[in-house]
Structure formats: structure tokens, C-alpha cells
């Protein structure tokens, strides 16, 4: 069981695709202009990651080393296309919101990176779990980024939610005459906010490390959370 805990911890924090590995940055930065877009794309990404980790873990014995990358890509691209078509057909509203960002999942580095680093070496359940957790790790970061950018940029949250749930509507948090801070929504803002998030993570890590060290000094075992990457 602790293995799954480690997988979860890795995906959510320690090996977090964005904060720790800096992979999958393009969709992260391009789509996080508001919270709704960010979460929607994040959910689609989770789906693809789970499916591809599952499929490749299942098929890994059949794939020769030399052509593993093309085969992985083939599988991921096929899965993405299937998800894309399925969304188009069955969840048309969501599909319209996400538009071109679904095909873009193919080139999200973390999908391939996880497949190559984890699914190709591990069992079915662990791999699926890894896909899920890595995906969740991606979602919370992109959601946070989207929320901050939307809030600073427009003073709102959940704008555009009506496109998914027609009964709901976005929330104007800051006064209506808030002039907005356009840069937050533009590419530079994406970089700035992500930089601040990473610095925040560094700060938390440093604090945790200090704790561990203090524990050490008092001769207590540190909280064990160590699975090699």
C-alpha cells in the first residue's frame, strides 16, 4: 500500500511534473488564462495519462526497445485522437471550450515522460495510478495558475463556467471597476506567476528540510517518503 502512497506523493508533490520536473509547460502556460479552461484541460489530460499509462504498461512486453518511442507516440496520439473525437461527439460543449488544446495533449511532455519512465517499467495498477496521480499533480498546478491569472488579470473567477454548466456563472471577485492587470493573462504573466509558484514550492521544501534536520538532531526518524524517482 505504501507504494501507492509514494506514487501519489510523487505525482502530487515530490516529482510534480510542473514544479519539480518542468515538463508539460506549454499547455500549462497557454491554457491557464482562466480557471475554467485550466481545469477542463487538466481533466482531459488526466484521462489521457491514465489511458496511455495503462495501455503501455499492458503492452510493454511487446515493444522492442529501438522503436519504443514511435510506438509510444503512436499509442498516445491514437488515444488522444479517440478522446478528442469522443469529446466532440458526446461532450460537445466541453469540446468547444477546449478546442485545439485536446490534440495538444499529444505533445505534452509529461505524458511521454511518464510512459517512458514509469509505465514502461511497472505493472498495470501501479502505472494507472501513476498516470492518475501525475495528472492530478498537473491539474492542481494548472488550476492554481489559472485562478491566480484570472483573478489578477480580470478580478473574476470561474468566468466561462456557463459553457460547461449553463446554469452557473462566473464570480466577479474584485469590484467591477477594477482596471484589470492585462499582463497576467498574457504570456509574460504566465511566466511570472509560475516563477512565483516554483519559488513558493522551494520555500516549502526548504522548510520541510529544515524540519527533517531538526528531527535528526533530536534523534528521531524523519517521516519516510522515499521512493527513487
Amino acid at each position, binding site marked *: 500500500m505504501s507504494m501507492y502512497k509514494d506514487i501519489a506523493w510523487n505525482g502530487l508533490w515530490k516529482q510534480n511534473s510542473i514544479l519539480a520536473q*518542468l*515538463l*508539460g*509547460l*506549454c*499547455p500549462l*502556460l*497557454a491554457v491557464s488564462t482562466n480557471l475554467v479552461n485550466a481545469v477542463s484541460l487538466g481533466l482531459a489530460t488526466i484521462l489521457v495519462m491514465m489511458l496511455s499509462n495503462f495501455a503501455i504498461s499492458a503492452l510493454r512486453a511487446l515493444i522492442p526497445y*529501438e*522503436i519504443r*518511442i*514511435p510506438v509510444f*507516440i*503512436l499509442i498516445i*496520439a*491514437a488515444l*488522444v*485522437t479517440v478522446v478528442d*473525437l469522443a469529446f466532440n461527439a458526446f461532450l460537445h460543449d466541453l469540446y468547444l471550450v477546449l478546442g485545439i488544446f485536446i*490534440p*495538444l495533449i*499529444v*505533445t*505534452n*511532455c509529461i*505524458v*511521454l*515522460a511518464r510512459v*517512458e519512465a514509469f509505465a514502461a517499467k511497472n505493472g498495470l495498477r501501479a502505472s494507472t495510478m501513476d498516470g492518475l496521480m501525475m495528472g492530478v499533480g498537473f491539474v492542481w498546478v494548472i488550476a492554481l495558475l489559472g485562478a491566480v491569472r484570472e483573478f489578477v488579470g480580470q478580478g473574476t473567477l470561474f468566468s466561462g463556467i456557463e459553457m460547461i454548466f449553463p446554469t452557473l456563472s462566473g464570480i466577479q471577485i474584485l469590484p467591477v471597476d477594477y482596471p484589470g492587470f492585462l*499582463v497576467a493573462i*498574457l*504570456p*509574460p*504573466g*504566465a*511566466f*511570472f506567476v*509560475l*516563477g*512565483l509558484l*516554483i*519559488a*513558493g514550492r*522551494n*520555500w516549502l521544501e*526548504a522548510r520541510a528540510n529544515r524540519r527533517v534536520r531538526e528531527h535528526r538532531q533530536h534523534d528521531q526518524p524523519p517521516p519516510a517518503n522515499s521512493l527513487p524517482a
Partner: protein
Amino acid sequence: MTTYLFIILGAVLVNNVVFVRILGLCPFMGVSKKLETALGMGAATTFVLTMACGASYIIDRWLLIPNQLEYLRTLSFIVTIAAIVQLTELVIQKTSPVLHQVLGIYLPLITTNCAVLGIPLLNVALRHNFLESLLFGFGSALGFTLALILFAGIRERLEAADVPVHFRGTAIAMITAGVMSLAFMGFAGLDKFK
């Protein structure tokens, strides 16, 4: 002639892949710590991207469109690209093991460099002909390389700066990338004179 020049200039400066189109960020962040490796990655990407644009044009034009198989575009493009990357990787591995090791996980990840899929798809969307596709791919890759080596130059200097502890490394690199993209916004509007 000038249209071709504009395609390249536009791709390098105005719609720089990294700063404006927000594509190819993972290698941009990952392989920019040293100038040499940045140059290597830039060269590899330029080669792959130009090839990918040519190949994808041919595939799209002569295989997919005549057979009404546009839904296979993403798949066929990405598989072609993967194959090109794999070939390049094998060749580099043989000819320059050090470069190969340094580029580490990023060489296979060129495949998932969004730019390498995104630019061929954009070529289709912009209805470029074969030559334009090649030039657009080449120009975008140049823009990527430019961004990468400029960034590497700054990062080499930043390495020695007295940056606050929690911002050292990637955090300040992100902020730097932000200012760079801000600077590239200065080129906004230049493309309306195409």
C-alpha cells in the same frame, strides 16, 4: 522573395515560438543552463523541425487530403516526427556521445516539443505551400534556437548572481523568461505589414 523573408523574420521575431506562441517550453527551460548545450539542442531542433515540416507537408498533401483522412493528421504527423527524432538520436549517439548524454532525456523529448508538432499543424492551418512550410519550420526553429541561446547567455550570468535563495534556479529562470517574453511583445504589430 520578400514574402519568404517575412515568413522567416515573422517566425523568428514577431511570433517567436517560445515567447509568443508558447510552444517548446520544456526544452527551453531544461536545456538552457549552458550555452554549448543550448546550441546543440537548437541545432538538433532546427534539423528535426525543418525535416518535419517538409515531411508533414508531403504526407498531408499527397496522402491525407486525397483520401479524406484529415483526422489522421495529428497521428501521422507525430509518428513521422518521432521517427525523424529517433533517427537523429541514433546518429548523434553514434557521432557525438557527449552531446547525446548532455541532451539526455531531451532528445527523445524533441518529439514532444510542442513546437515540432505545432508548427507543421500551423503550416496546414496557414495553407503554406511546400517552400513556405519549410521556411516557416526553419524560421520557427531559428526563433527557438535564438530564444534558447539568449536565455542560456543570461542564465550563465545569473548563475553567479546573488538571487534570493528560494528563487535560485528555475524560479528566477521563469521570471527571466517572463521579461524576455515581455520584451518580445515589442514586436507586436509588425506582422500586419506582411
